[in-house]
């Protein structure tokens, strides 16, 4: 194999602008954050009770992780390894809640559980004894709508685990229960840890849910500052802190995932035997459908019911006023996904030929930045360096590019990895130049992978809220922004639900395509 790597003009032309937009915002924030007086910062940190806020965010992320794993891991084991009734249907449905962004989940549960909501009214009380507007409430929502991450990773690991390992343990004299505790679970540990870290980061960096539920976190403080004052220093410092922790967790996750690959043995033809649940079957069945009810059926039902309550006479005017926001979302997401994929494809192809140094590692920094932080950094950075992009929809497309170039690169890399280099060499030896060979052979063969990558970035961009809120030009609202503003200003009412339903349906279709391809390793950030 050729080890030599060099920069070609094409590689530079593709990598440099992207790297510029990845590094620029972070550099800007660091510069702003470090520029301030230390004593001044400490005083303001005290005013904000920052220590308490950081503790609260850590608690939120931890609770979210525990809750998501409690939902996802048993479900994964039940659908893959037991004779649970309708397990195939459940296995197919279980990842679908990823199509519902958590902030929409928050909206749904506000409609249901908030004082004066559907449940209290049904029970005839003014409010419920436990408030949704709390750290526990936010963790409840975030866990419900992120549990598919641990579910997908653990069920994938369970499917790939070589059953011979468990048979060997049985042969060595272990009882089935000991096989579970001493072989199966330890083998799952890396996947479980990786899934848990994704969820932890989600809770750590979330903006949508906590803002709707009025929980004070680092992201909401940053957002308040951005809205209220022109003072950059404090939010910049908080952003850097938020990002550093995120990057540390991501590095941990990369290590864990790297190790996970070695513990799972592929290539066993025989699926593992299913464990008979016996009398527990129906309890497990109730548990599984309980999870899906809370995360999928109930939210869709509530949204649908709310939409049906809209007065038919308002419908026309409502659609007319909201239509432009849908179009804004659609075209920026399409542009962001297309740009990310073209760059990822170019870089992936050049890297495969040793014509570009590996830059995907650098791009991962963009993937690690929480949306709120990127929004702030990008707004400041563009304002300072490229004012003609700042406050235009282009800024949004750049934000999507920076946030989601990594999943695009991963999709392209995965697609290219399945192609043996000799396929393209065969085309070369038959008289086609490098580009002609790429067009005639490589492109048609990797197209399914590219489509999946494009859909993934499209879905992620379509639902992006935190960065969009800060970066968008005045008056240029997207669907998530509209839903959020509506829910914040007017409250959880039918119009917000109608917008949310439109967004969920727009996302759900590509999601179904993606999930049917069993695409794994899904982005943790929104």
């Amino acid at each position, binding site marked *: 194999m*050729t080890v030599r790597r060099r920069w070609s003009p094409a590689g530079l032309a593709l990598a440099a602008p992207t790297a510029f937009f990845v590094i620029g915002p972070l550099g800007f924030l660091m510069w702003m954050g470090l520029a301030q007086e230390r004593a001044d910062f400490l005083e303001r940190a005290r005013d904000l009770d920052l220590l308490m806020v950081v503790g609260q965010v850590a608690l939120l992320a931890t609770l979210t992780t525990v809750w998501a794993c409690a939902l996802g891991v048993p479900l994964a084991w039940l659908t893959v390894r037991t004779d649970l009734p309708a397990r195939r249907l459940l296995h197919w449905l279980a990842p679908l809640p990823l199509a519902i962004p958590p902030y929409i989940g928050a909206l749904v549960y506000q409609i249901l559980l908030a004082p004066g909501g559907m449940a209290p009214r049904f029970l005839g009380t003014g409010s419920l004894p436990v408030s949704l507007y709390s750290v526990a409430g936010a963790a409840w929502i975030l866990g419900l709508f992120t549990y598919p991450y641990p579910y997908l990773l653990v069920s994938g690991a369970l499917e790939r685990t070589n059953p011979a390992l468990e048979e060997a343990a049985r042969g060595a004299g272990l009882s089935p229960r000991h096989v579970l505790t001493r072989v199966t679970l330890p083998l799952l540990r890396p996947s479980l840890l990786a899934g848990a870290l994704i969820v932890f980061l989600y809770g750590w960096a979330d903006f949508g849910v906590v803002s709707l539920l009025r929980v004070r976190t680092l992201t909401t403080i940053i957002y308040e500052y951005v809205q209220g004052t022109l003072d950059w220093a404090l939010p910049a410092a908080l952003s850097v802190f938020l990002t550093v922790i995120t990057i540390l967790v991501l590095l941990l996750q990369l290590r864990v995932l790297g190790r996970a690959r070695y513990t799972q043995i592929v290539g066993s033809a025989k699926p593992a035997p299913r464990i008979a649940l016996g009398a527990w079957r129906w309890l497990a069945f109730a548990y599984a459908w309980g999870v899906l009810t809370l995360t999928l059926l109930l939210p869709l039902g509530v949204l649908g019911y709310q939409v049906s309550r809209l007065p038919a006479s308002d419908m026309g005017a409502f659609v007319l006023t909201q239509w432009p926001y849908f179009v804004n979302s659609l075209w920026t997401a399409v542009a962001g996904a297309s740009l990310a994929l073209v760059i990822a494809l170019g870089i992936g192809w050049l890297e495969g030929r040793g014509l570009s140094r590996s830059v995907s590692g650098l791009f991962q920094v963009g993937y690690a930045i929480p949306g709120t932080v990127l929004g702030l950094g990008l707004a400041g950075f563009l304002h300072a360096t490229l004012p003609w992009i700042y406050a235009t929809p282009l800024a949004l497309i750049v934000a999507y590019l920076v946030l989601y170039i990594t999943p695009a690169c991963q999709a392209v890399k995965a697609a290219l990895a399945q192609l043996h280099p000799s*396929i393209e*060499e*065969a085309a*070369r*030896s*038959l008289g086609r130049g490098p580009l002609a060979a790429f067009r*005639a052979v490589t492109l*048609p063969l990797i197209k399914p992978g590219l489509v999946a990558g494009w859909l993934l970035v499209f879905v992620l961009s379509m639902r992006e809220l935190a960065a969009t809120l800060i970066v968008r030009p005045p008056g240029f609202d997207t669907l998530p922004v509209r839903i959020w503003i509506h829910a914040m200003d007017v409250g959880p009412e039918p119009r917000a639900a109608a917008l949310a339903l439109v967004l969920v349906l727009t996302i759900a279709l590509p999601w179904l395509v993606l999930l049917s391809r069993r695409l794994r390793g899904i982005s943790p950030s929104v």
Partner: protein
Amino acid sequence: MELLTLEDVTKRYAPAQPPAVDGLTLTVAQGEILALLGPSGCGKTTTLRLIAGFEAPDSGRVVMRGETMAGPGSWIPPERRGIGIVFQDYALFPHLTVAENVGFGLQHLGRSGRPPRARQILELVGLETFASRYPHELSGGQQQRVALARALAPAPALILLDEPFSNLDADLRAQMREEVERILRNTGTTGIFVTHDQEEAFTLADRVGVLNEGRLEQLDAPETIYHHPATLFVAEFVGAADFLPGLVTPYGIVTELGVFADTEARRLGKKVKVMLRPDDVTFVPSSVGDGTIVRRDFRGSENLYCIRLPSGQRVHSSQASATLYPNGTRVRAEAHVIHVVTFPA
């Protein structure tokens, strides 16, 4: 007439490592079939890739029909070399039918010229009825034939085959070997193939080049390679061999198994090793014999006996499998060496 020449070609993948191909010089004649034989990592596949143009040499030149393909200051990319390649994994285009695969290199014929030529080539490899199938619908042997047909379709002067039979079952391998040779000979195509299988190299090739650690150890006809190996490496790699210590005397080379003619006129008193092939060694059971059978390997058509000589030296002898001698049988071993090959001890 020579078709291809490699002149002192060296290729190094990493500066710290020894070169993959080290000062390789060889010439291939028009219509010849050449085998590059060697253990894995000997540089044979790299040599193929250098000829094809998938790698550029660090120094030296690759010349084809007097035109420099690669060398100081000149480089012709693979698509303009007109060299057909059959890949080890066949590398058939999975999204194209058999006919489209075969027609892939026929762009110059245009839309209407391609199908007749593709059909003609498919007939040559006996796959005319499979034209509209996709590669995954074919067996391994059929895929191999498509790969060969695809490489032959543009009528290249030279065709390269990278371990062409390694993915086939043993019985299919012999059949395909014969078929590939027939097709190459009938079309007058020059062929270079790499293999680690000496039997494959011997049956198919006019000449065999034995490679070791990027260097060409010997380039000769198969019989010469087997009977007159130029180096100890070739002697050991090609066929089984024992090396019997001997001493050069005025009467010949004196060894434990008798005196051999000193064909190479070595310096008197020099210690040498005489190469013995298992078919050079015979034995007769004898109660006064000083050799002992210590092991017998049943090989189907033959038995391979390992005989321990009084000095402790072991030699091997292949015998027809009809008669059996148990381990421990005392024997008198004899060596009938027609081509005496010695190496410095």
